């Protein structure tokens, strides 16, 4: 049948219109959507004035000039070496940016000696895309290429890093005959002119040019003499560059140089060190990708005693000169970036969740917090003996994303093409150094200082809760399970625990005298645990629907408990329908979207482990804003008040989308703004993971580090994280019934030492029902099995910790013989004996593998 032309026209028009509408929809909703930009921070750059040393009433440090002063601190600097030193007026202790006795170091030589003299080291890709490093000492300070500016409360050094000289000095290796005559020879007397002329010969490759003879190039003395004569003739570096350009046919290879400002400011009892990365200037082909800052600030010498605090999981100490010089500590803050994370995991690690580190010496301590660029930082710590005689800890910041992308059809090293982002991340790298007095010079002092600072900033508020500690109960609700009908498989939702069954479990615990139950309901909406993208809320009907959830909420809130609804915003399962994974996911440089799964403990590879729902994309921070807005809209109509965030406080991902790169620091700003919104719309937030920036919004933190990574270099495991937040935020770590080893006494001692509440993940039905699902990690959750144990553990822990609920930890001490002493600010003292023999501390006897409570 032939169509009439009119019909054909209408169909064509409709198709074109449809396509245009779809394109417009995509543009508005995805490509041009940038609401996230409102969450980003802006940075200011203070203009400096000419530097003049301040009047110093009492010169505290010889050979240095006073740069800034306040009631507590004096900032000194040496304008020749650009090192700084901070003098603490309270104690008279001086903290140096570079060790003052570094010249006597017997171990460091060559580059390591330069490192000792440097304030920072930049890592960059050079012209051939090879990684290289530059220290600011030999490429800037020694060459006198730096300026000093005065700021309101401090100073700024502007370093100009780069090699401006050539191997021949200012003597051009190739020069035009006329230029040589005109610029040099005519201005010198005849004898000198002749001697210069004799060192040049006609160039074979460049007609009309003269070339230095090979004899003179290798003769140092001869070159020196020539340099002097060229200078005498008034020949300058600019002329040299001009001649080089002439010789190269007009094209001049610009030299690789970096201009980097480094600011020091005094503010109260702290020193703020800033690198305004937006002001970094690169010339030539060098591309900075990282910078390590003040590597030796407050470093401990080979004959000093003390330790380094590193934020390894819950926290660790590295004793000075512990001899473990073959390894260094190096850990990403908040874990590696999701877009940079390797798909093979070599070891199971606990993330560093705090952007802090510290150095404790005999009479003083420096505590350091990274307040800008924390998400881009790794903390690196070394002990003496390997490269130099100092024990140091410092941050390394990633300033520009880079990745090696493998190319198809190429083998070997050349298959990896280094890919670099065009621009340096524009942000302020900022470190605050706090100087602690002798009485606070310990990790307890650092924790106290940090907590007090956070309380002053309004981030933490102490003493909210007292009485019984909470009992954390994760209830496993709906689970995605493959069902089949006549052999046709489909994804169903299996009811592990319905809402009324959850009530039953809660009532069982209440019968056992546990009332402060905080239930985190896993898998309650949009299709179970691996739920559809959280843009809307459909409470799962198999579990009992809206009414059931409401009743459970009533039961808990009337009996002193809380019901949290668990939601994952960032990791979005492959089973999700309501998610445009091609457009909304974070991407790699190569354009592929980020996909993660679970790590197989046997093969160490990340995969879905055979279950599609385990695989997940990671949402780009760009679209996180919209997801959460939509979620909150829907959440208003749901009758629960509290949310548990499965991943918002746990992972931060950048988005390497080629045309719209969002770095990790920006991602953090976006996440913090979302947390603020969520906090305003919920009564309480439970945050899983608990990176430090979530503290202001969390009333409970689950899954906080319950130990450190036992790296070779670290010596002691300490609950630093817990010491900071105890009494301000309730917390718990991993579910006890799913922990790898089950030794009841060990678990108990850990809970008591760390001040953590117990947590269990339970379900109404037996875990064997979900053996063949992506949630088979929950292998032992049947509530009947655990009810009695859970109640016993809770009561035993509560018996001790209820005395310290709402109090802060004012001291934690490692005593001899495996005994740990934890002092709370209300006077309670808990002793933990981890050894297998009873110990006596004063009048207190602590049984083997036991604990004692004092001061109740």
């Amino acid at each position, binding site marked *: 049948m032939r169509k009439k032309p009119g019909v054909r026209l209408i169909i064509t028009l409709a198709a074109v219109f449809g396509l245009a509408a779809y394109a417009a929809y995509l543009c508005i909703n995805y490509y041009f959507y940038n609401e996230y930009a409102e969450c980003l921070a802006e940075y200011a750059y203070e203009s400096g004035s000419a530097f003049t040393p301040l009047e110093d009433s009492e010169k505290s440090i010889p050979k240095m000039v006073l740069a800034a002063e306040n009631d507590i601190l004096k900032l000194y600097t040496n304008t020749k070496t650009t090192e700084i030193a901070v003098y603490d007026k309270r104690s008279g202790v001086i903290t140096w940016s570079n060790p003052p006795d570094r010249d006597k170091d017997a171990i460091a030589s060559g580059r390591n000696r330069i490192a000792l003299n440097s304030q920072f080291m930049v890592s960059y890709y050079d012209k051939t895309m090879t990684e290289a490093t530059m220290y600011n000492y030999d490429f800037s300070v020694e060459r006198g290429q730096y300026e000093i500016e005065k700021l309101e409360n401090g100073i700024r050094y502007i370093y100009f890093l780069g090699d401006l000289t050539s191997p021949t000095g200012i003597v051009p290796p190739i020069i035009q005959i006329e230029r040589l005559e005109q610029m040099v020879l005519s201005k010198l007397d005849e004898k000198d002119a002749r001697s210069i002329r004799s060192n040049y010969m006609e160039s074979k490759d460049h007609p009309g040019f003269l070339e230095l003879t090979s004899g003179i190039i290798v003769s140092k003395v001869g070159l020196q003499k020539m340099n002097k004569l060229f200078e005498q003739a008034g020949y300058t570096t600019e002329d040299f560059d001009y001649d080089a350009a002439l010789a190269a046919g007009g094209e001049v290879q610009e030299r690789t140089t970096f201009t980097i400002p480094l600011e020091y400011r005094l503010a109260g009892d702290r020193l703020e060190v800033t690198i305004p990365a937006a002001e970094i200037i690169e010339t030539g082909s060098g591309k900075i990708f990282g910078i390590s800052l003040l590597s030796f600030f407050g470093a401990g010498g080979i004959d000093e005693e003390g330790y380094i605090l590193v934020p390894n999981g819950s926290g660790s100490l590295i004793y000075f000169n512990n001899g473990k010089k073959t390894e260094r500590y190096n850990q990403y803050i908040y874990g590696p970036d999701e877009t940079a994370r390797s798909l093979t995991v070599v070891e199971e690690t606990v993330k560093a969740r705090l952007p802090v580190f510290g150095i404790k010496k005999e009479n003083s301590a420096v505590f350091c917090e990274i307040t800008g660029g924390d998400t881009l930082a790794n903390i690196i710590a070394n002990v003496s003996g390997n490269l130099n005689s100092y024990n140091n800890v410092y941050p390394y910041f990633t300033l520009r994303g880079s990745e090696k992308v493998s190319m*198809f059809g190429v083998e070997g090293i050349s298959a990896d*093409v280094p890919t670099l982002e065009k621009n340096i991340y524009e942000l302020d790298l900022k470190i605050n150094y706090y100087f602690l007095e002798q009485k606070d010079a310990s990790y307890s002092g650092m924790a106290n200082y940090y907590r007090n600072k956070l309380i002053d900033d309004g981030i933490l508020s102490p003493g909210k809760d007292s009485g019984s500690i909470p009992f954390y109960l994760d209830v496993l609700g709906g689970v995605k399970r*493959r069902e089949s009908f*006549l*052999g046709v498989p489909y994804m169903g939702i299996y009811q592990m625990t319905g809402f009324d069954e959850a009530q039953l479990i809660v009532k069982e615990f209440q019968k056992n005298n546990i009332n402060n139950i905080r239930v985190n309901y896993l898998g309650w909406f949009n299709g179970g645990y691996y739920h559809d993208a959280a843009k809307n809320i459909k409470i799962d009907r198999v579990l009992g629907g809206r009414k059931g959830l409401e009743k459970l909420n009533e039961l808990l809130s009337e009996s002193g408990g809380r019901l949290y609804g668990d939601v994952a915003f960032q990791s979005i399962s492959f089973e999700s329908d309501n998610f445009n994974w091609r457009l909304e996911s974070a991407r790699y*440089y190569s*354009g592929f979207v980020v996909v993660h799964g679970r790590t197989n403990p046997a093969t160490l590879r990340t995969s879905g482990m055979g279950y599609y729902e385990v695989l997940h994309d990671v949402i780009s921070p760009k679209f996180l804003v919209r997801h959460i807005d939509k979620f909150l809209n829907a959440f208003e109509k749901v009758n629960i008040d509290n949310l548990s965030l499965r991943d918002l406080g746990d992972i931060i991902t950048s988005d390497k989308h080629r045309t719209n790169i969002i770095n990790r620091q920006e991602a953090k700003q976006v996440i913090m703004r979302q947390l603020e919104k969520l906090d305003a719309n919920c009564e309480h937030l439970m945050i899983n993971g608990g990176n430090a920036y979530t503290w202001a919004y969390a009333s409970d933190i689950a899954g906080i580090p319950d130990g450190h990574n036992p790296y070779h270099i670290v010596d002691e495991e300490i609950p630093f994280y817990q010491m900071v937040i105890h009494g301000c935020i309730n917390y718990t770590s991993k579910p006890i019934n799913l922990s790898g080893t089950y030794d009841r006494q060990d678990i108990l001692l850990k809970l008591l030492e760390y001040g953590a509440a117990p947590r269990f993940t339970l379900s109404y039905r037996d875990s064997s029902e979900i053996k063949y699902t992506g949630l088979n990690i929950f292998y032992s959750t049947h509530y009947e099995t655990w009810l009695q144990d859970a109640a016993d553990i809770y009561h035993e822990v509560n018996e001790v910790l209820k005395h310290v609920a709402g109090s802060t930890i004012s001291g934690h001490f490692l005593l001899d013989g495996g005994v740990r002493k934890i002092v709370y600010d209300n006077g309670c003292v808990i002793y933990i004996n981890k050894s297998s023999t009873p110990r006596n501390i004063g009048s207190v006897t602590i049984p083997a593998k036991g604990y004692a409570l004092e001061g109740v």
Partner: protein
Amino acid sequence: MLNKEKLLYPFYVISHPFDGFYEIRHRNKGSVTVALMIVFLFGLSFSITRRYAGFVVNRINPRTVNSIAEIFSVMLAVLLFSAANWSITCLMEGEGRFRDIITVAGYSMLPMALTFIPTTILSWFIAADEENLYYLINGVSIILFVFLLLVGIMTVHGFSFGKTLITLFLTFVSVILIIFVVLLLFYLVNQVYLFLESLYTELIMRV
């Protein structure tokens, strides 16, 4: 078009194979639609057996059964067999048309399609020592299938028994050839795609 006669004809064929297949070739008694329906039914019953047969006779993990994929593979296998057989018999002066071959393959499956579901139900009631009954019934239907297929191919092409065996062997060889060529094609297309993709990646990375 489908009518009662065509729908019931397969039952006539399995009871009178020589006459039945002859009339398919020469009197258009067969129907491709009916044949495909039988193939579909066979695929379904095959899947149901794997999924639901009692544990005494079933060693398959029921979670791994995906009946849609299985029905689809059975269909594909029939198509592949028919195409291969057709291409061989064309060269060997077979009289059968493509539709005849499909019809033969489909109609021969009727005994299996009929017995698999009853034996599955039977398997729920038999004890460990009685599984021979189950295997006997299934075995008979499978042997009948092979017999029908042989007779069918022989009849529609007008071959002797020996020639049929030879063509079936050659059919088997050409099935393997077809699979090989198809896989090769997929591989090459994939290579071209990968090349273009890496070209794009390299362009956006380096430029």
